[in-house]
């Protein structure tokens, strides 16, 4: 990784509404041209953090730097940021062109330059035919683009997205998501992107920050977040996970091979990092398990009853209950849609040892 200047740095940011602690000691930084996602359930503080970066909410303590400049006491209108709102927040009385030109006018740019910049941005987002219309006359997707164009037009140091796609239907959402990412790559702007949709976060980010209760739970590249979640919350929130408590029976740190007992029997785990305790949580992804009809592995082979089968087209979800031991626990695995199994049938499943990860969370 090359050394990049930090476009945005947040240090020990804390913010309180009355008695509710919305942000607690949040620290992270974003390199120039990176797209960072703040991911978390509602109420986790991600939007608050975004608004603090934009300057709409003053921090109680901590600091925010944009392009190396401390933002303490700088009002939103003086910050080099531009925000795309969930509601789009288009000015209903202004035409699309006037909406896009709004920020440029505020920056006292020559009107001839404004016109050319508006035309250029509109071209990029495909709004050229709509320039003279009022926002009310546009479709949701078009409105979303206007909001995007309006923010992009001012070439902000940091672009802020507050769940910009949540009001779009599913198909359009995928489409715009790809578009935003493409535009971001093409223009190289730095962006902070708030979402509660983990797929969106994984699909478009350089860096994902998972938040809960005003704190950062984990941050890292999307693959790392998915592959190596640090705790049950992240494992469960990002993707689907089978989380189970395990007791470490034997360990060989050199080869990274660990023997554990889990709810459905003894299992082998391959891990580069040692577990943080002897009784801790581990997780595995449903798609990592294999039915024995597909493969003939003997290690980590377990027998389950299929208690439910959900056909999803290309895929098929199976809910399994272990043959032996804890009847309460259910595990999910995902196989191809054509897998010929029925509910009530007994199957053997292999979970590859390197598919099971230790979480950094001991069992209380």
């Amino acid at each position, binding site marked *: 990784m090359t050394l990049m200047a930090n476009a945005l740095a947040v240090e020990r940011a804390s913010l309180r509404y009355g008695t509710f602690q919305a942000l607690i000691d949040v620290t992270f930084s974003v390199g120039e041209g990176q797209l960072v996602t703040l991911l978390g359930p509602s109420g986790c503080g991600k939007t608050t953090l975004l*608004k603090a970066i*934009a*300057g*709409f909410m003053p921090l109680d303590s901590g600091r925010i730097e944009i392009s190396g400049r401390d933002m303490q006491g700088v*009002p*939103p*209108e*003086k*910050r080099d*940021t*531009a*925000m795309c*709102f*969930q*509601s789009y*927040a*288009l*000015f*209903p*009385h202004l035409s699309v062109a006037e909406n896009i030109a*709004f*920020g440029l006018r*505020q*920056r006292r740019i020559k009107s001839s330059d404004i016109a050319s910049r508006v035309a250029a941005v509109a071209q990029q987002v495909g709004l050229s035919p709509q320039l003279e219309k009022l926002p009310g006359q546009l479709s949701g997707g078009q409105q979303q683009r206007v909001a995007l164009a*309006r*923010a992009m037009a*001012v070439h902000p140091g940091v672009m*802020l997205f507050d769940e910009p796609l949540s009001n779009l239907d599913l198909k359009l959402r995928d489409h715009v998501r790809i578009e935003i990412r493409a535009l971001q790559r093409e223009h190289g702007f730095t962006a902070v992107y708030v979402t509660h949709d983990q797929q969106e976060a994984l699909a478009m980010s350089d860096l994902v920050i998972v938040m809960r209760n005003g704190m950062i739970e984990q941050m890292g590249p999307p693959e790392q977040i998915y592959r190596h979640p640090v705790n049950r919350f992240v494992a469960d929130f990002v993707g689907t996970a089978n989380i189970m408590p395990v007791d470490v029976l034997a360990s060989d740190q050199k080869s990274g091979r660990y023997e554990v007992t889990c709810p459905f029997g003894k299992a082998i785990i391959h891990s580069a990092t040692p577990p943080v305790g002897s009784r801790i949580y581990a997780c595995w992804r449903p798609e990592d398990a294999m039915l024995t009809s597909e493969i003939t592995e003997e290690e980590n082979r377990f027998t389950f009853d299929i208690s439910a089968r959900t056909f999803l087209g290309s895929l098929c979800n199976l809910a399994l209950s272990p043959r032996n031991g804890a009847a309460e626990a259910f595990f999910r695995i995902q196989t191809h849609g054509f897998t010929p199994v029925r509910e009530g049938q007994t199957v053997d499943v292999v979970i590859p040892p390197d598919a099971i990860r230790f979480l950094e969370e001991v069992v209380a």
Partner: protein
Amino acid sequence: MTNNQTLKAYLLLLPGLLPIIAFMSLVVGMAVSQSIGFFNFSGADQFSIQSWREILSQDQFWRAFLYSARTATLSAILSVLLAYPIALWLRRPFPGSDLISAMIKAPILVHGLVAAFLFVNFISFQGFLNVALVNLGFTASPMRMQNDTYAIGVVILQVWKNMPFAFLIIVGSVRAIGDDILDAARGLGAGWLARLRRIILPLTLRSLQAALVLIFIVAAGDYSFQAVAGPTSVNSLAQFMVRTQADNGANGWNEAAVVAVMLMGLSLFGSLIVAGLTQLAVRRMRR
């Protein structure tokens, strides 16, 4: 089906709407036809512009006309100017804001005549204000403020009474502006003045105009404030109309009708002009 529905709706509308249309067209029709010589109580009914000539040649009429136009314009503008910042201030609730909006609305509950009385009582020669000013040493002797020549008292009363209406009309539209929109403008570099000029004013233009029109019409047609607290040297149009009717015997009806038609004209066109100019001003500011 739709026709049937429309017919049914119109039948249902009849009891409420018919009296309004009948009464108003009769009253306005009466005023217009009396002004051109019909329904004459003193002589033959025939078309004549005598009353128009009579009234329009009177200095007193034009003074009354200009006076009403001026107080109406001033009252409308001042009420809105005062109500607007308060509406912005109370856009989002805060501890104590309920109390303040209740206090602002209080004058609505006070009858205009009572308000005029309280005001005259307050500023009279022996009134609280003068006693206070003299005792605090601001003036040596009481000031004469009652029935002042410039109708400052009337404008104060109009603003006092009508500002709450302007407030109620405006605050609704100000509250309807989403925080996101203002934040978006802020994020794009708009300071408070730019937000006011380019976002808030244009978005509240309609209610601004509604408030101006309403207050203009009420103030242009004012009788009570003028009669109790207004200057004695000039009449408001409504007062002039009542006097013209009362002082001129049977002819009075026809001449009063001319004043009435002119007053309706002033209400209509005056308020439209005020609203139009506001629109122009807001448009210009938006740039």
